[in-house]
């Protein structure tokens, strides 16, 4: 125990200063009153954004892609985590490592793979023309499908790791008990394993959604300017056209979207604990 409050504060101070000065304060200033922008212009721009069909399409696309990616990551990630956590095979360890490994690898490298797969001279296009399905390779890059695939690849390891920790905490004896009492495989899954792993599944969904709606590399490389999302739009305002009122307005929409999901997930997990 650190008895003196003064020493505790002294230990904390550098970290606090870095977070307040290096994250929280600059972000608040940027969101509310960026430099070289007159007061009220950000809110004005935000109002116009929320009534402009082009901007609304970007917001809606970001939301839609986020939701689809989250659903797919949970749908693929939970079963994978379940099998890995319950398996006694000697392959379970290496397979778990293989699922975690992409987390260490640069997003640029991982997303670049889809250019090779989906590009005009890529794997899928060449296969389609070679098999004679179509004379011309279909346009796969710069579509919403490409962005969704890229983001699923990016966030699936996170979903697996988060679900794995949840499933591993559920006593495997409960599965056996349910099966022993006559429940089928499907019923055991839906009435025992999934409800007990729910906090982990919800956490995985939150992390994936927040990551998917703020990711930059993947929408930039696979969506391009045809599939603008909030993140690519934010960068184009802040790094290319230097329209800082619009950049702040876009940043506000993005931040609110992410904060809402975190708040909802925190409230839901609290409710779950009380029950």
């Amino acid at each position, binding site marked *: *125990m*650190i008895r003196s*409050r003064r020493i*505790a504060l002294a*230990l*904390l101070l550098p*970290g*606090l200063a*870095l977070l*307040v000065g*290096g*994250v*929280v304060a*600059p*972000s608040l200033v*940027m969101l509310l009153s960026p*430099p070289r922008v007159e007061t009220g212009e950000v809110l004005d721009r935000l109002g116009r954004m929320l009534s402009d069909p082009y901007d609304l399409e970007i917001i809606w696309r970001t939301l839609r892609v986020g939701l689809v990616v989250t659903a797919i990551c949970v*749908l693929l990630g939970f*079963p*994978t985590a379940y*099998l890995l956590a319950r398996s*006694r095979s000697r392959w379970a360890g290496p397979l*778990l*490592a*293989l*699922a975690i*490994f*992409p*987390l*260490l*690898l640069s997003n*640029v490298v*991982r997303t*670049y*793979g*889809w*250019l*090779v*797969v989906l*590009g005009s*001279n890529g*794997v899928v296009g060449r296969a389609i023309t070679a098999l004679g399905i179509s004379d011309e390779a279909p346009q796969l890059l710069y579509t919403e499908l490409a962005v969704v695939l890229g983001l699923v*690849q990016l966030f*699936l390891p996170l979903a*697996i*790791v988060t679900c794995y*920790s949840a499933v591993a905490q559920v006593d495997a004896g409960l*599965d056996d008990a349910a099966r022993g009492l006559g429940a089928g*495989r499907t019923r055991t*899954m839906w009435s025992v394993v999934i409800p007990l792993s729910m906090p982990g599944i919800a956490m995985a969904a939150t992390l994936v959604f927040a990551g998917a709606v*703020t990711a*930059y*590399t993947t929408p930039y*490389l696979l969506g391009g300017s045809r599939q603008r999302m909030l993140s690519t739009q*934010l*960068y184009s305002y*802040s790094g290319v056209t230097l329209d800082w009122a619009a950049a702040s307005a876009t*940043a506000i929409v*993005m931040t609110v979207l*992410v904060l809402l999901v975190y708040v909802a997930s925190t409230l839901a997990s609290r409710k779950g604990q009380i029950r």
Partner: protein
Amino acid sequence: MKRRSPVAAALAVLGYIVMIVPILFVVATAFTDGETLRFPPEGFSTRWFEEATSYQPFTDALVSSLQLAALSTAVALAVGIPATLAIMRGRLPGKSLVEGLFLSPLVLPELVVGLALFQQLMLQMKLDNFQALLIGHTALLLPYTVRVTGASLVLADPALEEAARGLGASPLRTFFAVTLPVLRPGIISAALLSFVTSFNNVPISLLLQSRDFRTLPVTMLDYVQQNYTPIIAAMSTLLLAGTVVLALVAERVLGFARIFGGINR
């Protein structure tokens, strides 16, 4: 488990295909002898690896990225470990507020933080972009540092520290002789995790780039948009190889799943 569910197994296989197969195609195309990115590759050669390793923007950016990752990891540990001690062992007013603040870099979108630092630190305060990058990256790493070292501090019995103090050890000596050895795995985990996170970061590095100091992922991203040559495939394969080496080192030191997945098997 006695019988595996075929549906779950099918979904898992699909998941692995999506996660891994695109990376394998990158490696395959890197060894092409042709001029363009296509599959199947034309011929076999290592010429694009020679191109990648002799292309100066990439080698400069690699050095920049390594420097930034090493330095921000070191600063994040130097600032984060004392903060972890204060949060977990001290009696602090407004503890939940402090904990919330330490999570803030995880909750705020990184592009938002990047733009904020560009405006406030580089334009308003006239810091150069390396200083701004160091602040941004260090702040981004702090939550990981605090959480990971905190998790190993939970395992340390405070009674041992009290005993050392009771036997006359100074607070500093108690820290180095009793607390630090327990924290060691946490510190190693936090360091590896931080290094990888900083090295791979795009949003903050993108907004805080300058002509003199650019990180490798940002340089590669820029290159991909302008050229369609397999040089990026070669560079990606080299990064993949480096990452595999790091993962193997992590596995030997402490256990790979434990460090990067937070999983104890």
